[in-house]
């Protein structure tokens, strides 16, 4: 079985979010980058298939050279090969098309991508890959078993979950629950040393027109101070929620 895990290179969850160049670019100054958490849940599940079924695991990122440290981390966790498509990731459809062109050269059985990246939150790439390749697709995946050519997956829905079977090839949108937080792996020294020798292939991008372009960024208006209420005076809270906030 051949698995491809799509890796987004995203600011750490505690990063300060600021913009530069007339609020048109994200300010990367002092920002630590990580594997997108939803992708990492997927990568960890892929490691399980590697160890149990002998699956091979490739990781891919669409981005500039600065994302290679993040790909090396995925290799240190245990992926076999890394691919970087050498172009800045501008929009979901562009990223999906670049990944699809790699998929078409490599016959993967399972494509794993996080349900969304924690930077732009689009939630589009796995679905677009599925639509462009005609593969089956399951989003919000919180369970995945594969027996021969048949996947049994669990999808989290609003207010419940469902179990779905799908023949491979399959694309899933991964999230927490696919593996537990405690299953995530911190690369050890041996993994880090080995990762240095694993192949990281750089591919050149395709030409394509932009469907959606970023114009500018804004930060939310600053919030007013909290109104503190005496714990002995819950009536005041209720009055405020009813008359001022009008939410009850």
């Amino acid at each position, binding site marked *: 079985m051949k698995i491809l895990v799509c890796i987004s290179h995203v600011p750490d969850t505690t990063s300060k979010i600021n913009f530069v160049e007339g609020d048109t670019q994200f300010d990367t100054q002092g920002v630590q980058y990580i594997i997108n958490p939803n992708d990492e849940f997927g990568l960890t599940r892929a490691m399980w298939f590697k160890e149990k079924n002998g699956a091979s695991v490739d990781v891919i990122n669409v981005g500039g050279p600065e994302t290679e440290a993040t790909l090396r981390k995925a290799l240190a966790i245990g992926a076999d090969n890394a691919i970087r498509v050498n172009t800045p990731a501008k929009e979901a459809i562009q990223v999906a098309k670049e990944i699809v062109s790699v998929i078409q050269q490599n016959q993967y059985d399972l494509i794993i991508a996080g349900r969304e990246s924690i930077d732009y939150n689009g939630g589009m790439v796995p679905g677009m890959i599925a639509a462009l390749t005609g593969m089956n697709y399951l989003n919000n995946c919180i369970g995945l078993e594969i027996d021969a050519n048949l996947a049994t997956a669990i999808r989290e829905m609003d207010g419940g979950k469902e179990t779905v079977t799908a023949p491979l090839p399959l694309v899933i949108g991964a999230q927490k629950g696919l593996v537990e937080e405690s299953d995530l792996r911190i690369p050890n020294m041996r993994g880090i040393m080995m990762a240095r020798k694993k192949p990281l292939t750089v591919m050149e991008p395709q030409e394509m027109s932009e469907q959606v372009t970023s*114009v500018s960024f804004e930060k939310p208006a600053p919030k007013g101070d909290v109104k503190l209420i005496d714990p002995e005076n819950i009536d005041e809270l209720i009055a405020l929620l009813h008359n001022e906030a009008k939410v009850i």
Partner: protein
Amino acid sequence: MSVVIYAESEKGQLKKIALELASYGKAIAAELQTELVAVTINCENNESLGEYGVDKVLTVEHQGAFNAQQYATIIAEAARSQSVAVAVVSSSADSRFLAPLLAIQLEAGYVSNVVATPISTSPFQVKRSVFTNKAFNISEINTEVKLIGLSKNAFGLHPHPTTATVSSFEASSNTSTMEVQSVDQASDSVTIADAEIVVSGGRGLKGPENWHLIENLASTLGAATACSKPVSDMGWRPHSEHVGQTGKPVASNLYIAIGVSGAIQHLAGINASKVKVVINSDPEAPFFKAADYGIVGDAFEVVPKMIEKFKAFQAENA
């Protein structure tokens, strides 16, 4: 030319977000001086969409369970039959699942998490939330057909009575090799996605045995229950209740956090909620900086009092 919304229903009845979508779609249709068309699947009360400005409803009968690929194909066919210019879907789990498939089928530039009506329609620019509600991005859609994913609770309900003509739409058959084997859906409790009020508990509650406080307050308010990341990581509550950056987003009218310190990842996930109330014994808890109303106090004393007072308030206002 038309504006087309996918109006979701559950057990044959329109969901509230379908009416919010209609309100939003009407605003765009008015701006573009065009018709507003709704596509519904297995829905019985289609006429209600007219109350929110829908001119035409295309109803589709679909056999079997929800299937994102089949639904996307149905919506794409129906939308194309109306010469769609702008298509709009909600931010429900199902709609976020099918929207990227729909975007490819319609060759539409797709922007999700949109928080307001377009800034301009020529060029077509919309505002969306990014960095898990820590910022906004203005995006320009350059394709002929545009697809918008509307954030929950971003626009609200705006009645605009119209008489909607309802007709059935025959979608071409499309088969799937995916099969739903079983569905496990809570029928009695409010979901975080649909809730107007969410009551959330954190480590300050000291253990799962104390969750009756959260549950009682939630049931008093008709609210959904939620929890912080450490609480779900420790297994006190199921993952499906974890709200925050890597959990579920919350965009309710009222969010009540009890014993939640307010880590930046948690705040990001709940930031789209309109009004935030925090109850925490630690006055230094970061949540107080993000909240609208706060009580510095012991949850074990404050919450029972809140339940009692809310009940009295409801009895008075019933």
